[in-house]
């Protein structure tokens, strides 16, 4: 391929070509907005968050406590059986120290984020969330953490009703 082909298609542009309109271009902003019905499982999940609680579903067949909650067990492919509350303490399974925000812009103060598996749910069942009250040097996989909830008046039925997870302290369950 390399031997037989001498010309490779593709005309490279530089950022200026686009941003200073040196090449002909059209611009368009799509009008694409959505409002997804949360459905039964997620609706209850959000209501409980507003109450300062984490709720899960149980599947009696595989005997798992499923979190985030879902109305069907994806392993057994059957409806899940019931609701059960789980703890708001858990273990950091993985994390990142991010110097990028959502739009890939650089930020000075890093965001500590990762996955926390929650006590009371089946092993490894967890959620993504922020970590705080710890430095980038302190955070580690295996750290025991606890949710810090926003004051009730500030909760809106969102995962952000938890502000972040902080290290579990001596003597805390």
């Amino acid at each position, binding site marked *: 391929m390399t031997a037989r082909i001498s010309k490779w298609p*593709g005309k490279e542009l530089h950022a200026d070509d686009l941003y200073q309109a040196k090449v002909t271009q059209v611009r368009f902003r799509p009008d694409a907005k959505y409002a*997804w019905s949360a459905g039964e499982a997620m609706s209850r999940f959000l209501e409980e968050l507003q109450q300062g609680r984490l709720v899960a579903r149980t599947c009696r067949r595989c005997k798992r406590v499923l979190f985030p909650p879902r109305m069907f067990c994806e392993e057994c492919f059957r409806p899940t059986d019931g609701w059960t509350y789980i703890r708001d303490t858990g273990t950091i399974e*993985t994390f990142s120290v991010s110097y990028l*925000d959502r739009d890939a812009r650089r930020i000075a103060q890093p965001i500590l*984020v990762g996955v926390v598996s929650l006590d009371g749910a089946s092993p490894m069942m967890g959620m993504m969330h922020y970590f705080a009250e710890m430095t980038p040097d302190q955070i580690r996989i295996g750290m025991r953490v606890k949710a810090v909830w926003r004051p009730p008046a500030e909760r809106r039925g969102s*995962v952000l009703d938890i502000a972040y997870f902080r290290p579990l302290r001596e003597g805390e369950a």
Partner: protein
Amino acid sequence: MIGAGMTLFRRRLQETGKELCYEAARMALDSAGLTLADVDAVVSGSAPDAFDGVHMKGEYLLDGAGGYRKPYVRVFTGGGTGVFSTIAGWWHVASGLADVVLVVNEEKMSSCQPHAQSVFAHIWDPILDRPLQPNLVWIFAMEMNRYMTVHGVKKEDIALVAVKNKRNAVDHPCAQLADPKITVEDVLKSEVMAWPVQRLDISPPSDGASAVVLASDEVIRKRRIKDRAWISGVGWCIDSTMWTDRDLYFPQYVARAAKMAYKMAKIGDPRREIDFAEPYDPFDYKELHHLEGLLLAKKGEAPKLTREGVTQRDGDLPACPSGGLMGVGNPIAATMGQKIGELFWQLTGQAGKRQIPHEVRTGVSNGWGDLMQYGSVVVMRA
């Protein structure tokens, strides 16, 4: 597979998506000695419509891809599309419904303003993940950290992959990110994006297209086509959407896809029977993750193979001889050029300066995508 083609991969190309498709398709057909009239069906592979900025972009691209008045279909399995569309092309032929199939993959990430990153805000669950305003790099960072921690892998070992692939890419005519002089130190000194991911661990967005031509053995015999490589095994698998419930240290879904492909290819001992690999490498650690997922290295062993030079082009199991996504570029679905295209070019002795110096008869490649969920695997033989 009897032909392949690809465009340059660059951060921004002037050509429209349709034109990119056309260029790659034209090259592939020319290399196979065929015209569009010979093609029975066209398969298109392209990842998020939001990059190109057109809803149902498969429809928009189809004339450039040769689909005019033909059976044409687009498949889309996130980052797995680069390898998966070839699988879809394969079943068009292996089913007997088509004798000659053109597979055209394209991505034009530069259309998306201000940055292709913004599209990745929409791949997350709206209730569980989006409110946290996640950045795409977080996915890789979390997976990389888990992999490193479970196996005790050091960043130095991971950086070796970036160095290998960007150097391999020097010999790839389409490469966007080749660097003959890059060192492990360069990678380790590069800007931290989301620890443990640093700038030189990542392949940035690209524009590009690639195409392959598939034909039945009857067509190959009748036309006495000499430059051909066989698709011996295909496999694909998706894991649960609930990624926060999974241990990310090992891509179970890649292993399942690989097992499916190896079973079809009658490969019992992949490490011995596979001569070279093009694992999907959008980040350097992914090559290691996927070498293990492809069962070419035991869990946690891939860094050792890399350190020992086993995965260099002249090693015992060359990995990413093309230069991979790290070296050539990452226009998502269009990476078929380095993943599948490279298997074809190596197996038919057409890889030029990238040709592996010893004989290779069996190669494997994987695609990877979605929320750390998707594995697509193809085994090809000379």
